[in-house]
């Protein structure tokens, strides 16, 4: 059988092959990625689409959790101030109801309670980063404003809607209670009961003062119950925060396993490819010039 002595196509194909392996190895080491275009690994590229979107989302969800935590904490601390104010009002009311106070004393107590009422209203109008905390979703409107026509002296300008902030895919946490629910609930009206106490103290009737004080006391309990909502939100946000941190780690390790490069392995591959390439070149340089002519004596 006749043997093909034209080695050029074979050698060129081999060189192209080893050069391409070398290029791939070099690219992996220099970019740190094993997948640079979809054809490098179609499955991983497709999975990376989801991973890219998810990673950015988790990042934003984490930011949302942080900012909502501050909002919820601001609301909770406002309510905590309200609670201590109400506690003070209850003791003032109890003092006013014991029947030993002079009219001028009662007036002084009434003034103190009036001060407490103003402070509670200012807490009800608390805002965080320019948004009112207790106006429902009407965050640009002052929730409680004075209104002489209203029996309590104040009117509610907000709405009864609640916002839920996205902190995960299909997971959102309620972050506010409308002010009407906290401060002017028909069952335990904070502002109304304080305002009644002021009126009762000004009237000087011990029984009326006693009744009004009881109402303030139940409003106090009621606000305490409402705070549970914020405590729940806070704990939900906190646990979501740790979940998101875990998620970030998971996504980034998924990314590494999908498109990342094991540097030690990539460097080894690169060095192997270099050796293979120089071997192919060396073989070509040995084989190509070899013909019978090398061994024939030149013509005399």
């Amino acid at each position, binding site marked *: *059988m*006749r*043997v*093909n*002595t*034209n080695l050029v*196509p*074979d050698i060129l*194909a081999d060189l192209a092959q080893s050069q391409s392996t070398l290029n791939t190895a070099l690219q992996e080491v220099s970019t740190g990625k094993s997948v*640079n*275009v*979809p*054809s*490098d*690994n*179609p*499955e991983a*590229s*497709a*999975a*990376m*689409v*989801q991973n*890219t*979107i998810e*990673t*950015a*989302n988790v*990042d*934003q*969800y984490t*930011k*949302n959790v942080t*900012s*909502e935590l501050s909002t919820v904490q601001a609301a909770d601390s406002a309510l905590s101030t309200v609670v201590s104010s109400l506690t003070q009002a209850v003791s003032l009311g109890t003092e006013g109801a014991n029947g030993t106070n002079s009219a001028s004393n009662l007036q002084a107590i009434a003034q103190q309670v009036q001060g407490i009422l103003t402070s509670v209203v200012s807490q009800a109008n608390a805002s965080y980063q320019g*948004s*009112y905390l207790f*106006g*429902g*979703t*009407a*965050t*640009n409107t002052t929730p409680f404003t004075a209104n002489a026509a209203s029996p309590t002296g104040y009117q509610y300008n907000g*709405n009864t*809607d609640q*916002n*839920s*902030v*996205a902190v995960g*895919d*299909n997971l*959102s946490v309620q972050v506010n209670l409308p002010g009407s629910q906290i401060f002017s609930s028909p069952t335990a009206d904070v502002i109304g009961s304080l305002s009644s106490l002021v009126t009762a103290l000004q009237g000087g009737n011990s029984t009326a003062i006693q009744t009004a004080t009881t109402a303030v006391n139940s409003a106090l309990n009621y606000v305490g119950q409402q705070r549970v909502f914020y405590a729940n939100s806070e704990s939900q946000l906190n646990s979501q925060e740790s979940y998101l941190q875990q998620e970030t780690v998971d996504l980034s390790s998924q990314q590494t396993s999908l*498109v990342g490069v094991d540097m030690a392995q990539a460097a080894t591959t690169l060095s192997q490819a270099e050796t293979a390439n120089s071997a192919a070149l060396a073989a070509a340089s040995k084989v190509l010039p070899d*013909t*019978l*002519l090398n061994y*024939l004596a030149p013509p005399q």
Partner: protein
Amino acid sequence: MGGLNTALYIGAQALEVAQGALGATSNNIANANTPGYTREVPQLSENAETLNGGQVSGGGVTLDGLQSVRDELLNLQIQQQTSAQSSVDAQSSSLQQIQTYFASTGNDIASAFSSFSTSLAQLSANPSDASVQQEVISSGRNLAQAFNTTANGLTSTQSAADTEVSQSVAQINTLTQQIAQLNGEVQQLTAAGQDGGTVEDQRDQLVQQLSQLTGISVSQSSSGEVITTGNGSPLVVGTQSFALQSTTGPNGLQQVLDSQGNNITASIQGGQLGGAIQIRDQVIPGYLTQLNTLATQFATAFNTAQTQGFDSNGNPGQNFFTVPAGAGAAAGLSVAITNPALIAASSDGSAGSNGNVANLSAALTNALPSGQTPAQAYASLVFQVGNDTSNASTESTAFGQNLLELTNQQSSVSGVNVDEETTNLIRFQTAYEAAARIVSTIQQLNTVTLDMGSSQSY
């Protein structure tokens, strides 16, 4: 019995034959690297014996001619593999261009979806913040642009393939003309009882080039070589060539017509032409359809979510995206609104409500009418592009290996082996020297014979 003159005649013939053989050898060496060259072997035969005075004597040697050593079956296989490979190569190079639009570069659709989704999550926490609303509009615009860029990238690759179609048709026509002409020359040589030799080499080389352009089928008939396209439209019959035509079709793309005017575009397979048509009419339209469906369905879902809510001014939300109907959806997708206040984050009409943001985000995470979420739909497109590209390049490597194998076989049959030719050179050199010695010996003997009758003696 043979006289000295007979021996002289035989010697002279041997000189001629050795010269001819040296000529063939030198031609082989000269063409060792000529593409398509088939080595030529001198055909020697011994002359008829002569019966002279009851005695038989040899009649010397004759050079019958030079014979090209070729294997027609191998040639056919090589043509087929060449067609297959150049088709896959054409597809592979187009796909390599296409897949860069789907690579994770930061400007691709996946990254744009990602930042759009992020901006909506941010809007959820700050529904009335104008800078966050602006961010939603900007990232929406980026998303629309990513769709535009990808669709335009696909379309421009498609037009490049279209240009390739008309160019290939022109090249095919030039080649078939030349082949028909060479067919005539081969016929004349064969009729004169000669080996086609270099003319056949040239023709084989042209047929090989033709097979690079399109899949062909080659057969021999009484009128010479017959070449048809894969589906049987004649390209060359003997000395006649049939030109293909390209004409702009109703979709604005070049259609290939055979010499009878029949549209054979869909049936052309193999070669650069087949590859370009496959990419242009099957692969890219497939991707574009998916991209357009995704753009249309996503934009519609987002617009619906937007109209469910209220903007910062308390008005019902209006469409966020403008999406052209049908084929131009991805290329023409744009953001309809410029005023950040028009983003319908609110579910109750108050500026601070974020109740509708969940609906807006749901357009990204819920299944579209296609049954997949936007991310899944895009991911499966990325997978398809990546897989097609990877398959094309694997096939190209495989066909390349086959072709190399076949070319090696052909080379081992028809290729010039310089070592062999060098050996032949020495062989024929020796033969020439020996034949020359015969002539000079006979000349000396003749001189001796003539001198026998002369007065001069030694």
